């Protein structure tokens, strides 16, 4: 569902992404680990079509992101580190707006169902986003993805800044989506959460994918060790 073939992005003299080959199938959660500047966000930006690749190709459902921008965006949902919704609108209004501009129209009860499925409590549906915590905003982001019926989910450090409970809830939501067949690519620094939810884990450094594992084939301590070794940290 999410594929990159020799995806490369060069800014001036600097290679932000170097020949990245990645594949995330339906029902998989792929966690990209790496330090700041490793190329995680660049990968997501390329998959979203926000920037042009220098070479290589990014595919969503076997369609080139840059040649079929509108079609691929119909199939994917995106949740950034800080999900900035419209603070003067309520949760249900934000959901209605983002669904509406994507040409998906829902009744109020349907919108409420998406919010419930995303784990948001009913009493906050009609509260303005300005009163929401980061965790609650991320849940609205999940509701937007649910409403969109996204086949691919791109997450850019979504659990950064969340408390453990909210982070855990978010992880459970991802697993729920995974069971529905959504292919998820999550860029994160959070090794623990990656180990908890990922079906596959990749470690990036200097724009290159250095290591790849199956999530269930590696322990948290080993993951940490490999990560630190890849980053050339001395423990």
């Amino acid at each position, binding site marked *: 569902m999410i594929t990159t073939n020799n995806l490369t992005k060069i800014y001036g003299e600097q290679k932000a992404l170097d020949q990245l080959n990645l594949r995330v199938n339906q029902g998989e959660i792929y966690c990209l680990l790496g330090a700041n500047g490793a190329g995680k966000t660049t990968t997501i930006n390329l998959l979203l079509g926000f920037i042009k690749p220098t070479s290589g190709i990014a595919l969503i459902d076997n369609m080139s992101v840059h040649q079929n921008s509108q079609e691929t965006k119909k199939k994917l949902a995106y949740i950034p580190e800080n999900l900035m919704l419209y603070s*003067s609108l309520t949760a249900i209004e934000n959901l209605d707006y983002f669904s509406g501009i994507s040409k998906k129209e829902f009744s109020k009860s349907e919108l409420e169902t998406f919010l419930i499925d995303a784990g948001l409590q009913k009493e906050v549906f009609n509260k303005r986003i300005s009163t929401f915590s980061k965790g609650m905003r991320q849940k609205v982001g999940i509701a937007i993805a649910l409403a969109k019926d996204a086949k691919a989910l791109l997450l850019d450090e979504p659990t950064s800044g969340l408390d453990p409970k909210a982070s855990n809830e978010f992880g459970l939501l991802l697993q729920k989506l995974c069971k529905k067949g959504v292919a998820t690519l999550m860029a994160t620094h959070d090794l623990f959460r990656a180990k908890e939810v990922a079906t596959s884990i990749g470690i990036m450094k200097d724009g290159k994918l250095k290591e790849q594992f199956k999530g269930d084939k590696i322990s948290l301590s080993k993951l940490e060790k490999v990560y630190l070794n890849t980053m050339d940290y001395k423990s």
Partner: protein
Amino acid sequence: MLKYNFKYELKFLLRSRWIQLLYIILLIVFGFSVFNGKQKVDKIKNTIVAAEKQVKENDIMMLKLIDSIEQGYKVSVPRWTVPTNPMAIGNYHPRVAAMKPLQLSFISTGQADLYTSYIKPTVSADDYALNFTEMTSPIQLLFGSFDLAFVIVYLIPLLIIAFSFNVFSSEKERGSLRLIASQPIQINIWLLQKLGLRFFWLSIIFISTITIILLIVSSEIFLQPRIYITLLALTLAYMFFWFVLAFIINIWVGSSANNAVALIGLWIIFVLLVPSVLNQLGNTIYPMPSRTLMINEMRAKKLEVTEKQDEILDNFLRDHPEYATNDPSQTTGFYHRYIASQKLIKEEMKPLVNTFENQLKNQQNLTRSLKWISPALIMQESLNKLAGNSTEDYENYRIQVINFAETWREYLNTFLFNNLDFSTNDYINLPKFEMIRDKFSVTSAILTLLLISISLLLPGLVFLNKDFYFDE
């Protein structure tokens, strides 16, 4: 997408109190400016009414005196003011030549604060008093009083800038643009819709506030809906131009701060700089000759002709046999010589006066031919026209007053040179002044504004077809 943008843009504008704020601001500035303009117009109207009333009262006294004289009574008034003397009528009982304000005069002061709204031409006054050489191009009038035109030309663009400078950049800076851009929509179309909706809502606010204010202050305007609709159409075309500029800047410039600086810069250029440069250009290319020179030459000419008034009168009567009768009892006095000399002065001064008038016309023509550079100029000139206070209106008035003064003199000269007394029967035939306004249309101004806006919008629309990418 439009349906949802429409629904939620309105909610956003209401909740962020933009709509309420704009209503309050526009009600205050429109209210104050219309009230201000109305006060000025009322003052002009009252002045004209007072002048006409005074003429009527004087006429009653004049007719009573003539009647007494005709019945053989002796009247105790100075010899030179006895109203059977046509020159006394010509000098002491002049008519009011007024330029009455139009229905929309309150919207723009125009040249009204520079020139008189009425004149009483007499037989002995010269036409140079009517020479409006101080009349300037409409550019200078941009720095005028706080009237509705000032609010529309100056303040509305600033409100539009404040309302639209960061429509795109704020989304970018807050981070919500990334979420928007991840939806299957074209970002540039989305931006066009957002700005289009802001134009729509500001237009609604403008129309409703101006309508409320006009209903309160000048409801009679609605009896002539064409004028009201013209005012609205003109202003909306001007607002559209500023929204187009905001759209272009939103697309091509980056941060909110840069957008604001760019738009304020354009405001300075279009509203202040271009009119000022055009004004300077007019003065440089077509400099006005010295007015002092004209006055000195006029004095010298007067002195010269005064010294040979008898000779001038002979020449004048030779040229105007209709005034020369064979009546041997006809006597010639001061006024005979004066009228004849005035004619000569007028003819001799014509080339100098023409120099002034031609330079002024050249300046005005230059401004007119280049006004499309600044929509603010087009707007100011059109509002002046709607108000009936434009340069052309005053020029038209000046010409009509000069013609009327000539008619007034000619009418009374006939009495003078035929040694006829002015009688009560002649009163009804006294020339009267009624200003005839030129027909005007601001359709071309509206079309020019739209044309400028569309030609600016086109590059933006070309840009719309390109894929949107975040800054790399």
